[in-house]
């Protein structure tokens, strides 16, 4: 079966017309994983029997002539920090190596109702902390475009799995760029929804005011399809919002936005020293293309941009330090009651040993950073200050998006870097996020689209929109996709 240019919509056509069965499709992708994943390591666990059982259920539905949703029978992968009942959910950490999820994340329950076929759980930076997937306790994932390079992170496994053709789409999570940056590095589409658009119930929490689950796919229409299926308010997540109305969002026939009515803003603060000139060239070319297609492109300003990364690396570790307190060796996961470093027996020792051994370096670094910025004497200077700067960053976006419909920026300041290149310098690794963190702080939706390459290495462009205006973001991406489609 020729899987190369498959999309969800294509697979759906073939399943509906019975040219291919879900079991055949699933076997084909399991075959791709078997062939490629020893080199790429996108998956932490593959569940063939489970996937084939799901596929058989869909095939029975097809045989009964039942109505088939767009995602039914289509193979996908789920990041290993999103819970799928009965399957492992390790968060790529030793502390959860033995943990099996005891319930479905809300988004997973929606996908199962749609008949999606889950092939396995994908690799990530431990507890979603990282920009390269090198912080995984179980080994890094490789970029399918160049195995010496990183796929980005933290959802590197999901991005690589889609890019390598090991599945048709995948779910990841984005707290500071963890869907968009790997999407950019791997040459696929990746969406961070508006904060609150998608339920976080069943997503292993990293930073609760920033986390969002988002899809990876090979076309804009596919992204829209997945997003419509997973979005919506959820009584189990009180931060999920009823504001966004996404029914019918994925019906491309109803996408009526005209390019001549489109106002695009390009923030000058994103095109400064630090942006690789080769990346800038590709990104500017894409923006110019929008202009030649008829859009109005103006330079705008997001003045608090220079403070965004510092703001993020105060707010996020603070929330992490609270969210990771639950990993204590009592209720689940690693529990160090033997082979200890200390001879002492008490509760405190259990905590120290379990967390000391179970958490990797980056996790412990961020937990300590968070503990510091929240502690007495430092709270005002760091955390309270960061919360105020965050408000200003959000205001920047809201102000600009009153004047323009979308903002275009590069996804990453550099091309995908080599494995091992930044692992000695945490700060150098953090700089990979400089173009993505602002959108999480502000809560606005952002989609990374492939817009070209340099020496075979993908370059991503972000389309940023108003809160809950994924519809405009997707339509803009669709315009670009259509204009660049090879017939």
């Amino acid at each position, binding site marked *: 079966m020729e899987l190369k240019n498959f999309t969800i919509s294509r697979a759906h056509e073939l399943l509906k017309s019975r040219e291919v069965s879900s079991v055949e499709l699933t076997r084909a992708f399991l075959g791709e994983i078997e062939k490629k994943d020893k080199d790429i390591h996108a998956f932490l666990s593959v569940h063939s029997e489970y996937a084939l059982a799901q596929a058989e259920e869909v095939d029975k539905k097809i045989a009964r002539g039942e109505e088939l949703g767009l995602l039914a029978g289509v193979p996908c992968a789920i990041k290993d920090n999103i819970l799928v009942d009965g399957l492992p959910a390790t968060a790529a950490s030793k502390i959860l190596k033995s943990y099996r999820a005891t319930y479905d994340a809300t988004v997973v329950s929606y996908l199962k109702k749609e008949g999606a076929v889950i092939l396995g759980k994908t690799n990530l930076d431990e507890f979603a902390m990282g920009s390269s997937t090198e912080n995984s306790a179980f080994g890094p994932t490789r970029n399918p475009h160049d195995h010496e390079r990183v796929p980005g992170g933290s959802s590197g496994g999901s991005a690589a799995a889609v890019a390598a053709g090991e599945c048709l789409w995948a779910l990841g999570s984005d707290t500071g760029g963890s869907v968009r940056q790997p999407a950019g590095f791997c040459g696929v589409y990746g969406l961070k929804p508006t904060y609150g658009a998608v339920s976080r119930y069943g997503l292993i929490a990293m930073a609760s005011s920033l986390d969002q689950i988002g899809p990876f796919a090979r076309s804009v229409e596919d992204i829209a399809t997945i997003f419509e299926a997973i979005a919506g308010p959820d009584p189990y997540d009180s931060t999920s919002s009823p504001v966004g109305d996404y029914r019918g969002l994925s019906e491309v026939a109803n996408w009526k936005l005209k390019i001549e009515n489109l106002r695009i803003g390009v923030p000058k603060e994103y095109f400064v020293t630090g942006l690789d000139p080769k990346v800038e060239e590709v990104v500017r070319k894409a923006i110019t293309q929008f202009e030649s297609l008829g859009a109005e492109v103006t330079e705008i300003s997001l003045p608090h941009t220079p403070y965004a990364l510092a703001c993020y690396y*105060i707010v996020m570790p603070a929330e992490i330090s609270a969210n990771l307190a639950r990993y204590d060796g009592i209720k689940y996961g690693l529990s160090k009651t033997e082979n200890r470093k200390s001879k002492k027996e008490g509760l405190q020792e259990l905590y120290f040993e379990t967390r000391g051994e179970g958490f990797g370096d980056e996790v412990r670094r961020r937990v300590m950073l968070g*503990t510091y910025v929240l502690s007495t004497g430092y709270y005002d200077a760091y955390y309270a200050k960061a919360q105020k700067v965050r408000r200003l960053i959000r205001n920047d976006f809201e102000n600009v998006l009153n004047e323009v419909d979308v903002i275009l920026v590069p996804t990453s300041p550099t091309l995908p870097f080599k494995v091992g290149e930044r692992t000695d310098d945490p700060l150098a690794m953090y700089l990979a996020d400089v173009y993505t963190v602002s959108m999480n702080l502000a809560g606005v939706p952002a989609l990374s689209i492939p817009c070209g390459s340099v020496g075979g290495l993908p370059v991503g462009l972000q389309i940023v929109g108003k809160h809950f205006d994924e519809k405009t973001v997707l339509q803009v991406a669709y315009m670009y996709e259509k204009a660049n489609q090879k017939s």
Partner: protein
Amino acid sequence: MSISRKDVEHLATLARLGLSEDEKKKFEKDLERILAYVGELSKAYTGDVLPMTGGTELMNVVRRDEERVDSYEAKDYLFEQVPHKEGRHVKVPRILE
């Protein structure tokens, strides 16, 4: 903001993280660099802007004050994940001397 070995030990104690001597040395260096970077935020003028205390503008999200009853068996399933147990009790180290 300069960070000392004692600071690192204090943070590790607060966060219940076991660290080796080598790790303490490494984290001391890392945290110092990172704090120097994020400390630049003090230069941002924030005036009397209202802090953003979360990711959403939603307030007072409530639900009915009703008991939701899960089956006894459902709890068995959760129990499978508990590392140390005796029957349906979670076993913990002694906390009272």
